[in-house]
């Protein structure tokens, strides 16, 4: 599909296949529109050309009710900031989708909430308010909320950004374990190469609106492309140059004036 924002083309004939049951990573430099891609998949943005199919259904041809139904069944999303509702406690945040979409009694909800919170290791924190949580804890609560309705797919928007090593390790473990335990399809958007590559089954590298390279983590590690090598290994200079375009240094020093 293709998608432009104003006159800027963000995605140009992008073609991707995300396999059920696997952890698929979407990586690329900052600003390539990775979050935009998740919003396109979730139906919050509409592509200019092409289509996005989730569970066989064309997301953007659905009416509002059908779209909401699809989201409820198939999509859980973990936002970069957690996006917890600030006026509800941890418990109420996780219970929110259950209260809105199911007719469970309060005791049934309580069981589910405790189980979900237990899966992310925060069962004891259930009475805290979101502003009392650290960033990492907030993300874990958001994850518990995302799996509350047992969706088929979870999308992670930059889950590792800005986390300390321990929180990072916790999140990595959770994403991998939940994927296996709940038979989920996970889509991880990130530019933290090492962590993401360690849990992914398949990786798409996106730059300048198209897929630059795709493959398993091993295959990408052995890639011949200079750019992929620079990206995956975090090299300072390569196809993406270190110096912003400018005339040669000697010329500039020899000149009088700016």
């Amino acid at each position, binding site marked *: 599909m293709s998608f432009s924002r104003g006159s800027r083309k963000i995605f140009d004939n992008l073609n991707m296949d995300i396999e059920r049951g696997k952890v698929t990573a979407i990586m690329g430099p900052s600003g390539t529109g990775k979050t935009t891609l998740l919003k396109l998949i*979730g139906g919050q943005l509409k592509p200019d050309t092409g289509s996005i199919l989730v569970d066989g259904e064309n997301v953007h041809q659905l009416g509002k009710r059908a779209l909401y*139904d699809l989201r409820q069944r198939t999509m859980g999303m973990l*936002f970069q*900031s957690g996006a*917890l509702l*600030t006026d509800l406690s941890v418990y109420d945040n996780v219970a*929110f989708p259950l209260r809105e*979409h199911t007719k469970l009694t309060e005791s049934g909800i309580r069981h589910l909430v405790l189980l979900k919170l237990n899966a992310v290791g925060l069962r004891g924190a259930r009475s805290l308010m979101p502003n009392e949580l650290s960033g990492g804890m907030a993300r874990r609560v958001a994850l518990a909320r995302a799996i509350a309705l047992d969706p088929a797919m979870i999308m992670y928007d930059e889950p590792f950004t800005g986390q300390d090593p321990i929180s990072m390790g916790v999140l990595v473990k959770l994403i991998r374990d939940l994927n296996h335990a709940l038979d989920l399809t996970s889509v991880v958007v990130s530019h933290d190469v090492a962590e993401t590559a360690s849990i992914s089954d398949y990786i798409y590298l996106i730059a300048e609106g198209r897929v630059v390279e795709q493959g398993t983590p091993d295959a990408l590690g052995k890639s011949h492309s200079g750019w992929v090598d620079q990206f995956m290994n975090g090299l300072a200079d390569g196809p993406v140059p270190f110096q912003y375009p400018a005339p040669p240094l000697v010329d500039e020093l020899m000149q009088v004036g700016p």
Partner: protein
Amino acid sequence: MIQNSLQALGHSTLNAFSRTGRATLFLLGVLPSLWAALVRLPLLIKQLYNVGVQTLSIILVAGVFVGMVLALQSYIVLVDFGAEESISLMVSLSILRELGPVFTGLLFAGRAGSALTAEIGLMKSTEQLSGMEMMAVDPMKYVMAPRFMAGLISVPLLTIIFMAIAILGGYYVSTEMLGQDGGVFWSQMHAKVDFYEDVMNGIIKSLVFGFVIVWIAVFEGYDCVPTSEGLGQATTRTVVHSSLAVLGLDFILTAIMFAS
């Protein structure tokens, strides 16, 4: 120089049009969801508290003082004509027809309107609205509609309370400070103040004001640029635009209602 200014003028005019268009589309999106606010009573009650009860204190204080000042000023003017007995009429008609709805509108816009914009704008910038959508909960029904409905209900109620307390303030000043007869105060008012012409017209004004203020407040929050600067601009816009709208509509409504 001139070209730049003209360009800027054209740009802001087009911006204004596009903003008005977005605001109208937003309204058309919220209105069908308003029934949802009545169904989810706990949300509505919470918003009635946020928007109505918390504005009550400033309304009470302002009302008392406006009523008292009006009584003093009316007395000063009327005493020269020997018409001090009409003081209750001056106070009540001014309050019921104009000052009640307008003051309440302006105070509400400043206190509750800006709070609504800030709250919704913050929810937008922390991706809570997006998050709700992805959880298949319609933010229109869960966030916007209860606040909209709470505003529609609160503003007329606050106006009525303002009117009553202002008149009581006027009564206090007239009788305790200016030595007017309490009985004459009420009977003069009772004879000349018309329920439909004065009280109901004032309430109708407050309904219109409430609608416009809460529409602007909720829209600006929903539409704001999700940065701290954008949020500040949005709350300022809410207060300024609502206040101007209240004053402008007041003129139009007064012309329609009291022209005869």
